[in-house]
């Protein structure tokens, strides 16, 4: 005799009609509201912390009003901020102009000659592990107080990620793409230019973004040690402390982060422009 079929607990699944695509204002709100609310929370936390300070220490945290009246509303302070930002930016970019080509050259050399990789890589790691501010006094003694030592400091700050990410990218080129070039008896410079660099570019750009952010930090750190020459943001920070102008110090701090973020965003944007069409990391 056939067994009677088992009882089934049948459940009804409800259809889920497609929701209407949210309008522009809704999407903007969804994108902007969370960071805005977080910002408001930070400001509230700032005001609350300040109100907890003893009165004679409240200068450490200037009010928003003070920041406006004593810094951002004053044309001479704005001019100073602008000049300082340009100086810092030029140190940062000059540093990158040294570290990027040398770093890339080193990456290519390490890729081409395995023995060079073995020889150089440990020292790259060693270089990375030196706290760079610790060698600034030495650089000062050797090179004086001009533009060059600051640029070198930025170069040291930003160097590491360039050869390492380029090397990683070059090593990750699809084996069969290399075979494809070998079948046509392509020389290694051809392979490097037509397969290596394009294939490694997204990885390299990840490194460049890190370096770009570090470049501004490196420039400001270098200035903290050098109180001569055209003043950048770092020098402005120190001077504001000496002159007891904490509003200006905060203004310089804000401009520093804006500068750092802008350089980072510039490289991100550049990377997106170059790769979003074909790379998996790109948009839809």
């Amino acid at each position, binding site marked *: 005799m056939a067994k009677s079929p088992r009882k089934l607990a049948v459940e009804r699944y409800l259809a889920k009609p497609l929701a209407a695509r949210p309008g522009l204002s809704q999407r903007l709100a969804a994108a902007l509201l969370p960071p805005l609310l977080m910002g408001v929370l930070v400001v509230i936390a700032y005001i609350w912390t300040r109100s907890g300070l003893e009165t004679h220490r409240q200068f450490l945290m200037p009010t928003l009003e003070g920041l406006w009246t004593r810094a951002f509303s004053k044309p001479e302070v704005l001019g100073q901020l602008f000049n300082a930002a340009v100086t810092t930016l030029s140190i940062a970019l000059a540093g990158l102009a040294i570290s990027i080509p040398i770093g890339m050259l080193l990456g290519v050399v390490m890729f081409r000659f395995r023995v060079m990789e073995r020889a150089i890589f440990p020292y790259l790691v060693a270089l990375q592990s030196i706290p760079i501010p610790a060698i600034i006094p030495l650089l000062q003694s050797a090179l004086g107080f001009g533009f060059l030592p600051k640029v070198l400091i930025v170069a040291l700050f930003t160097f590491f990620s360039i050869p390492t990410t380029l090397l990683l990218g070059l090593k990750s080129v699809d084996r*069969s*793409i290399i075979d*494809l070039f070998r079948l046509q008896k392509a020389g290694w410079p051809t392979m490097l230019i*037509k397969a290596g660099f394009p294939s490694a570019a997204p990885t390299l750009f990840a490194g460049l973004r890190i370096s770009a952010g570090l470049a501004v930090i490196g420039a400001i750190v270098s200035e903290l040690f050098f109180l001569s020459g055209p003043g950048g943001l770092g020098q402005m920070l120190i001077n504001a402390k000496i002159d007891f102008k904490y509003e200006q110090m905060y203004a310089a701090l804000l401009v520093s982060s804006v500068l750092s973020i802008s350089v980072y965003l510039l490289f991100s944007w550049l990377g997106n422009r170059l790769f979003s069409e*074909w790379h998996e990391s790109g948009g839809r």
Partner: protein
Amino acid sequence: MVDAVSMVFPDGTKALDKVTLAIKPGEFVSLIGPSGCGKSTLLRIAAGLESHTSGDVWVDRDSLGYTFQDATLLPWRKVLANVELLMELRGFDPAERRRIALEQIELVGLSGFENHYPRRLSGGMKMRASLARSLALNPAVFLFDEPFGALDEITRERLNDELIALYTVQKFTGLFVTHSIPEAVYLSTKVVVMSKRPGRIVASFDIAFPEPRSPELRYSSGFAEMCGEISLALRNAMEG
């Protein structure tokens, strides 16, 4: 033409054991064998991508076409630039390579997709672009390393038919590595069965069906019989 070729990997693994295989111009030979039997290695040796450790190989390297297991398109180049790549490496004149590339793209049925990046193409379309890229050099000898292995059955059969059409037009000599017996029988004038590692040639079948082959052949009893015979040989090869 490959004579008594052996190949031992540096770690001591013996990949190929005295394989002798001569392919005459105009022949289309399929190599079939268990996984890891050295079929692909033999193909790579023939292409000069790998060195054999003893024996002799004679191949006209300058007129060689090669397709890989995947399409191997450069993801940063659009289809057109991908199809032009090999001609570019060979130093063709830019106008000439543009003309040939467009011709080949049309031949493999990819017209309209010249300006697409590979990531926007389906697996079958990528393979077509890859074929077009190789065909652009008008190779006299064409080596295929399981080119359709990653595709679904429907796409694979369609590409088999397209490959036959291309073969009929371009008259290349083919060496085709595959895991699929029907594919081997359908495409080839000869099917060679290899043993498990170290790879040796254990059986060879002439496939005498008239050319050009048409899809109806797949449903004929002769075709099924041939597939059965090769299947049996392959089974013996795996045990022996």
